[in-house]
């Protein structure tokens, strides 16, 4: 072969090697945690699959989980492999043949990582055209631990994403914060913004078809920086279900269930710390 492809058949040498028939299934989940100004993401591969993490301002953390069964092949040589990578670059590579399905062609992906210090190698193929990518990996950082455990959860709602999509898409972005009110009593669940043009809020009833589970035990009204939660809108748009949880400290957990083109399920979760300044006043 004259066109040397960096991935030969030496899969045995790689710490991680995987193959997926539709690269868009991976790209779609990664897009859900892509922050425009925070391009670096930490990959943590284990037997169960890939966990990809992006953090911003030490206040928000987004995790994408891609289970190993999403991949047609998934091999790990070691227990875990962790590295940091530029997510924007990776996404450009994954969508090299375009991000919209065109003419039914799906790009196949092979990905491998040779261990500490080596680049992440991708090979994409669509309709006989092959793309090789080699992306530099960086030293992984220590991840934030939000210490969010289900025992401390005070309020929890699981609902279909559709009813939140409009509300989040039309959020007043001139507002610095978003206030989330969760309560066992009326108005149950309220989103408020305070922008240049005035305040706005949207209420969601607790007993509509859209709400699958409503377990709120205590009235809690917490503000979060809107700019930190803005990237989560992308996850919301792609998801079919969302779980909203807050713990006794007012920390927020948003979990999104994302169904890919082949009907398989992946999860994306966002943790966000409350906006302290306002908490003290209140």
């Amino acid at each position, binding site marked *: 072969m004259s066109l040397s492809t960096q991935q030969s058949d030496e899969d045995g040498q790689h710490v991680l090697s995987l193959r997926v028939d539709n690269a868009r299934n991976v790209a779609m989940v990664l897009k859900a945690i892509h922050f425009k100004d925070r391009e670096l993401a930490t990959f943590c591969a284990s037997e169960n699959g890939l966990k990809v993490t992006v953090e911003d301002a030490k206040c928000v953390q987004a995790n994408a989980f891609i289970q190993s069964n999403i991949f047609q092949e998934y091999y790990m040589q070691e227990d875990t492999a962790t590295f940091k990578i*530029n997510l924007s*670059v990776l996404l450009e*590579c994954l*969508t090299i043949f375009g991000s919209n399905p065109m003419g039914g062609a799906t790009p196949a992906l092979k990905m491998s990582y040779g261990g500490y210090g080596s680049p992440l190698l991708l090979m994409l193929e669509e309709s006989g*055209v092959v*793309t090789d990518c*080699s992306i*530099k990996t960086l030293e992984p950082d220590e991840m934030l631990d939000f210490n969010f455990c289900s025992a401390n959860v005070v309020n929890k709602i699981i609902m279909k994403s559709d009813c939140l999509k409009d509300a989040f898409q039309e959020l007043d972005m001139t507002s610095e914060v978003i206030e989330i009110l969760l309560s066992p009593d009326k108005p149950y669940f309220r989103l408020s913004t305070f922008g240049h043009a005035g305040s706005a809020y949207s209420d969601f009833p607790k007993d509509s078809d859209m709400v699958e589970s409503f377990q709120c035990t205590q009235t809690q009204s917490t503000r979060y920086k809107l700019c930190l939660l803005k990237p989560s809108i992308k996850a919301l748009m792609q998801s079919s279900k969302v779980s909203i949880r807050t713990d006794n400290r007012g920390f927020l957990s948003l979990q999104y269930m994302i169904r890919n083109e082949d009907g398989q399920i992946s999860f994306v979760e966002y943790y966000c710390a409350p906006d302290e300044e306002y908490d003290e006043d209140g």
Partner: protein
Amino acid sequence: MRFRAKIFDVGTIEQFTRVVGTIAKLTQLCVLRITSDRMYFILNDKVSKGHLWCDLQALNLFSEFSMEGIAEDANEIYMEVNPDDLLRALKTAQTAKSVKIKLTKKFSPCLSLDVELPSRTGHSRTITHDIPVIVMPRRQWEEYSEPTLPDFDATICMPPLKVIRTVAERMKNLGSYLELSANQSGEMRLRVESEQVTVSTHFRNLENPDLDNADSQNSQRDPTDLVGARVDIRKFIHFLSGQQLNPAKIICSIVDNRVMHFFLLHEDLSIQYSMPIIFT
């Protein structure tokens, strides 16, 4: 010196508009050369914009076409024109019954377009656009002669424009230079490299048209050897997206690290474009 041409049919007006539109995308000033049966749009700027040579078979496009050149022994006209001006004038003619193009002398030499528009009352209206041109003296003609083609190291038919464009658009976000290479065994490669990433896309099973100069030194080259050159990725995309004509074939010819030449074949016209190279 005299020049007049006429188009009567809407489809042809549209076609001519697209030709001018393609040229206008690439340059703000070009030379229009008119001979007894052809029209050429020429750009000769090897440093920044590249070298463009567009050859139109005027007799097939225009219903009437007559030209008397600058002199009997030099029966041609060369003029400098802004293709954008010409495009703007032609855009008003998309529903026209006819378009007449003449070389006139008003305050200064002009290319005058008489656009005859239909109206409901039956009285047709005529709009005249006067586009200033600079008629070029004979001594300058030489600079705009047909480019002589070098001995290419590889010549290949490009994959569909749409595919190339999607890939190039992604690569634009990864680096600023595109390395385009090809060989004589139907393979072409687009490659971009930056500090963070190296991406190369390989196309296979492409057609290698016959080289006219196959007898030269190239025959000694291994047909699987890739030869290529680096170009500004934005210029490359600009060139691809400026194509309004959907060419039947785009042939890319390369002299290793020296020349990147595109040959766009259409029914009644051909466009040649040499893109400026960024030397490594």
